């Protein structure tokens, strides 16, 4: 009994701690770091027949989930905090992925099927004689990374500048983002584009000289991904908790009011959109070496919509909600598609409907209400700092 009691106390204290500004963050960061480090150690140090051994497949799966978590966070920053429902963030993710894919392609060198030291296999196959100009320099890691950030960033800037300056909002903007990613998908499907057509880029050998099939490389990629998730999470938290973040939420709730207070809301939206696109691009860059392929399917509108579902499930307007949502839904997807592959899309659709109707603030909202119930105190003096709507959790838990 006393054990149960103390356990309940401890858990309520934990939940209460997570509600303090910044604390929830440290918990999430801590859990992420501990879990990935433990997984890495279990993979590298334990023998394969140990019950605690973590397979390399699981390591890669976890890395993939974390890339998705980062993408979800990128969508959440623009949707949850600024009200820009982007249904095209998969485009920035895929562009980042193609940047990394081009680098990995060039690293293959003469180990391809055709053994051409300069041209990737698909170019040899298409009878191309020399490397297209936009492939130059992509064999340099730093240059490939630079381009993988520059291109999505520029695209987001130009798109955002045109859309937000013309004050396109709401569903029209969502449709435009959808069209953007769809157009890119059609373009990348074409062989003349020089990105491998519908096969995309694949058959990678190594990254920075390390064998991509080796366990140690896989573990290192997972750790780098975790590190970057944590880094972008902390950076985003700094942004949403600064005055900039408050202006962004103000734009979401009352854009006209914000504008008549003298804020150029379109500038705020454009820069936030670019920031978000860059995070999506980083996620794409980390995704490609881990799954070993990038093809135009990543641009498909459906992918971008799925990201929105992750964020909705986790709870938009909270950064940790987006991460948790992405991890949970993708885990469910892995499980479900193994059991009943045909049912997954229905399950996803049902999930979205249920969350929208019954949990408008997602799991984070549920969580926030639970902690509020467990931690309600008789003296109301301090409770004034919290709000009764789910948005409070947005800021407190950010």
């Amino acid at each position, binding site marked *: 009994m006393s054990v149960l009691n103390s356990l309940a106390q401890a858990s309520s204290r934990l939940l209460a701690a997570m509600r303090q500004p910044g604390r929830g963050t440290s918990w999430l960061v801590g859990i992420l770091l501990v879990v990935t480090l433990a997984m890495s150690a279990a993979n590298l140090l334990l023998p394969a027949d140990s019950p605690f051994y973590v397979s390399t497949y699981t390591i890669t799966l976890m890395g993939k989930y974390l890339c998705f978590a980062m993408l979800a966070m990128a969508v959440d920053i623009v949707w949850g905090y600024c009200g820009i429902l982007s249904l095209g963030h998969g485009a920035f993710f895929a562009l980042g992925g193609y940047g990394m894919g081009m680098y990995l392609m060039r690293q293959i060198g003469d180990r391809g099927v055709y053994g051409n030291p300069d041209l990737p296999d698909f170019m040899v196959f298409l009878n191309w004689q020399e490397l297209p100009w936009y492939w130059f320099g992509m064999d340099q890691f730093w240059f490939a990374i630079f381009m993988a950030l520059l291109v999505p960033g520029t695209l987001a800037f130009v798109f955002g500048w045109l859309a937000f300056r013309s004050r396109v909002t709401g569903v029209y903007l969502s449709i435009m983002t959808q069209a953007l990613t769809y157009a890119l998908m059609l373009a990348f499907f074409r062989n003349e584009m020089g990105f491998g057509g519908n096969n995309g880029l694949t058959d990678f050998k190594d990254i920075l000289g390390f064998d991509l099939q080796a366990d140690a490389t896989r573990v290192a990629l997972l750790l780098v991904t975790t590190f970057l998730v944590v880094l972008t999470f902390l950076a985003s938290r700094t*942004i949403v908790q*600064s*005055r*900039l973040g*408050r*202006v962004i*939420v*103000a734009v*979401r*709730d*009352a854009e*006209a*009011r*914000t*504008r*008549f*207070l*003298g*804020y*150029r*809301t379109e*500038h*705020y939206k454009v*820069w936030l959109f670019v920031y978000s696109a860059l995070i999506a691009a980083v996620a794409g860059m980390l995704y490609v070496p881990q799954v070993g392929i990038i093809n135009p399917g990543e641009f498909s509108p459906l992918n971008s919509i799925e990201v929105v579902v992750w964020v909705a499930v986790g709870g938009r307007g909270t950064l940790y909600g987006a991460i948790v949502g992405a991890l949970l839904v993708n885990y469910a997807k892995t499980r479900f598609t193994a059991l009943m592959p045909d049912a997954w899309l229905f399950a996803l659709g049902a999930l979205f409907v249920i969350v929208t109707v019954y949990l408008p603030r997602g799991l984070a909202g549920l969580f926030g209400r639970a902690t509020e119930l467990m931690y309600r105190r008789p003296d109301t003096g301090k409770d*004034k*700092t919290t*709000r*009764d*709507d789910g*948005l*409070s959790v*947005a*800021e407190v838990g950010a």
Partner: protein
Amino acid sequence: MSPINHFAGQARELMRRDTTWPFLVTRRRPVDVSKDIILYLEELNVSFDGFKALNNLNLYVNDGELRCLIGANGAGKTTLMDVITGKTACDSGSAWFGQNIDLLAHDEAEIAGLGIGRKFQKPTVFEAHTVFDNLELSLRGYRGVWRALTAKLSGPERDRIEEVLSVIGLEDARYQSAGALSHGQKQWLEIGMLLAAEPRLLLVDEPVAGMTAEETERTAELLISLAGKHTVIVVEHDMEFVRSIARTVTVLHQGAVLAEGTMDQVQNNRDVIEVYLGEDA
């Protein structure tokens, strides 16, 4: 006019020594009210799909004045505010803020930065933020993205927020979310947000709509106390309220000024009686 003449005219304009080239003038500058008039609106015309919302409207507002605008629905009150704050472009006419600022050459954000604050008809505050944060976001200062990222509240700014909180009587609600305020409190908070921005000219659209009698009275006191240091233009339907605060009243009708004067003068004006009371009688 031949092209050469046209060119010569432009060249002459460029060579004038009594004015500065427009592109050299800083966008943000203090308003010049040396002639005691803060707002000049002349020959304003705005039409929406053939409907003349403003019809050759002329209006001058003195510096430090408390002016009430009244008029039936569709008389052009809100359109007038939209033109002043840069939301609506006008077809013809001119709008000057003091001697030196052409309002038609600026957009909403710049006009707000020049010192014109606007309260909406429906109280609009940032509901997800606390009262305190609402005022913080409204404080006078730079509005750039990068500055906002590093902005920290300074001591004087904090004092300013406290001052505004006491003026609008929301000291006890400072950490409440604005969405949880009552309708009247939201109206005050929005006025407080304008005050925090320290504007020269306040445009207040229906400040007492939906307020209790007591709240209305306090709002009247607040607006009267603001006049002098600020110029206040109030649009209101509540005649009792207008009578309680107004010194000068302007009556709008079909997009033009019908009459102007004290409340008594306006009420005894024959045109006004014809247009307004004539319908009632």
